[in-house]
């Protein structure tokens, strides 16, 4: 296992498989009367959230607590500016207290990578800007596999505001590593930059016509449909003209859901939340039997327990107090 989980690319297929398998065991803890195992006793985990996220933060917090770690939540509100404390100072101050792991949510892409270079503790990316959200991708894979079995050879379509989505970027890596075929669907303005060469390099496909991808002639049948959140604020940024136009083109409407389930009753529908009901997903679709939305939330704890276990429990899992001494002298980093 890598020392940090900064990107899904830190995990090869075998490591992803190990984490998902362990999550199955962790899921069992979730259904016990006494939800507590001693595995991370004496470990301290800091949930350092520079952005609000009730869902992810509480999920990590519960995961840590059920494994007997001490979890402490710190909200680093307000964006860093040249006048505020630098990110490096913020994290090194906490690191100096002797914590074992940082779980970090930050509005800036790459913030977790940078922090990993500054601290002795392990760093787990809980979402960085529009870059990645690896534990979300892991729980998505876990949830889909519980319903569909192995994702090898399955076809997953991901629809929505892809350019601003860290969930997309992590899922692209994990789904491809697990052997799934992936098709991205969005209007061109909501596609990430350079998507054509990216798709060519990483072996996925890109489309702009949702109905053609879902049921067009010769289209590969879709096993899972992942709807990503579209923020209404993007309209003012000129990414699309109106909510209505978006929904007609790319929303999972009641009609689309009906056509889809006619084609494939086994299809599953994911959404990382929070949902804009009526915009990218209709209420009928969100609450349909095919919807995994609540399963995703439930799986979040088990998957995060698994990640914490694999990163923190083993031989080099804790921050080594002895190794900390020379670095805390703040020396030797002129470059």
């Amino acid at each position, binding site marked *: 296992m890598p020392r940090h989980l900064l990107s899904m690319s830190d995990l090869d297929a075998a490591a992803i498989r190990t984490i998902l398998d362990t999550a199955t065991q962790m899921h069992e803890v979730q259904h*016990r009367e006494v939800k507590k*195992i001693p595995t991370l006793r004496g470990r301290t985990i800091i949930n350092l959230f520079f952005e609000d996220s009730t869902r992810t933060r509480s999920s990590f917090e519960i995961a840590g607590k059920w494994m007997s770690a001490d979890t402490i939540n710190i909200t680093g509100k307000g964006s860093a500016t040249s006048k505020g404390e630098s990110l490096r100072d913020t994290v090194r101050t906490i690191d100096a207290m002797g914590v074992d792991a940082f779980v970090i949510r930050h509005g800036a892409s790459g913030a977790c990578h940078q922090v990993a270079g500054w601290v002795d503790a392990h760093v787990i990316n809980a979402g960085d800007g529009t870059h990645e959200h690896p534990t979300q991708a892991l729980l998505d894979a876990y949830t889909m596999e519980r319903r569909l079995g192995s994702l090898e050879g399955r076809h997953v379509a991901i629809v929505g505001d892809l350019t601003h989505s860290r969930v997309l970027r992590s899922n692209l890596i994990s789904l491809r590593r697990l052997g799934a075929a992936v098709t991205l669907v969005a209007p061109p303005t909501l596609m990430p930059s350079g998507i054509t060469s990216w798709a060519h390099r990483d072996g996925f496909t890109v489309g702009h016509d949702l109905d053609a991808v879902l049921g067009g002639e010769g289209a590969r049948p879709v096993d899972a449909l992942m709807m990503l959140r579209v923020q209404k604020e993007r309209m003012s940024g000129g990414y699309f003209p109106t909510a209505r136009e978006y929904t007609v083109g790319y929303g999972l409407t009641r009609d689309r859901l009906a056509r889809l389930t006619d084609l494939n009753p086994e299809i599953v529908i994911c959404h990382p939340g929070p949902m804009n009901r009526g915009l990218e997903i209709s209420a009928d679709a969100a609450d349909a039997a095919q919807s995994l939305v609540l399963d995703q939330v439930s799986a979040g704890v088990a998957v995060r327990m698994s990640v914490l276990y694999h990163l923190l429990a083993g*031989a080099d899992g804790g921050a080594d107090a002895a190794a900390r001494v020379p670095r805390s002298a703040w020396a030797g980093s002129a470059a």
Partner: protein
Amino acid sequence: MCPDTAVPPSSDQTQSSSSESTPATGEGRTVLGAGDISRALRRIAHEILEANKGADGLVLLGIPSRGVPLARRLAAIIAEVEGSAIPVGSLDITMYRDDLRRQPTRAPMPTEIPDSGVDGKVVVLVDDVLYSGRTVRAALDALADHGRPAAVRLAVLVDRGHRELPIRADHVGKNLPTSQSETVRVRLADFDDADSVTITGGVR
């Protein structure tokens, strides 16, 4: 999940010369053959029934990995003797080990508690080798998180001595005096080619 190629974490946890550290060379001194193992299990099954005055309230929990098939075999013998099935399951102790920080992380194995649960039952923990006693200590902790048995008993195929905790087995297939530099290896047809217990290494 059935990672039968993984190193079995069931054996005792001391760093040196536990059964798990030996490559499967097939060499070494065979101390129990397939027939010996079969007879030992049959005897243990009868001991369990005798101590419990029948099969009522019995639950067998194997400690992965090799304790699990041993528990199933014991349950099968008991069912054959008593004429009715008894609950059998598995109890993984990975998350309860006291040496987690001394080794690379290992993937936990399934815990399967029978639907009847463990509350008020007589739980027999089953493992292949009893050595330092740390695995059993971890298993007792793990078991407590699943409920409150009326009693907990311990059945092992081999007791090789060198206890580090005040723990003893209720039912032993064979007491095997060893030195700590020796390695005891249990092979079971479920994972390996055939049933056997061998000793390798050590000063002879």
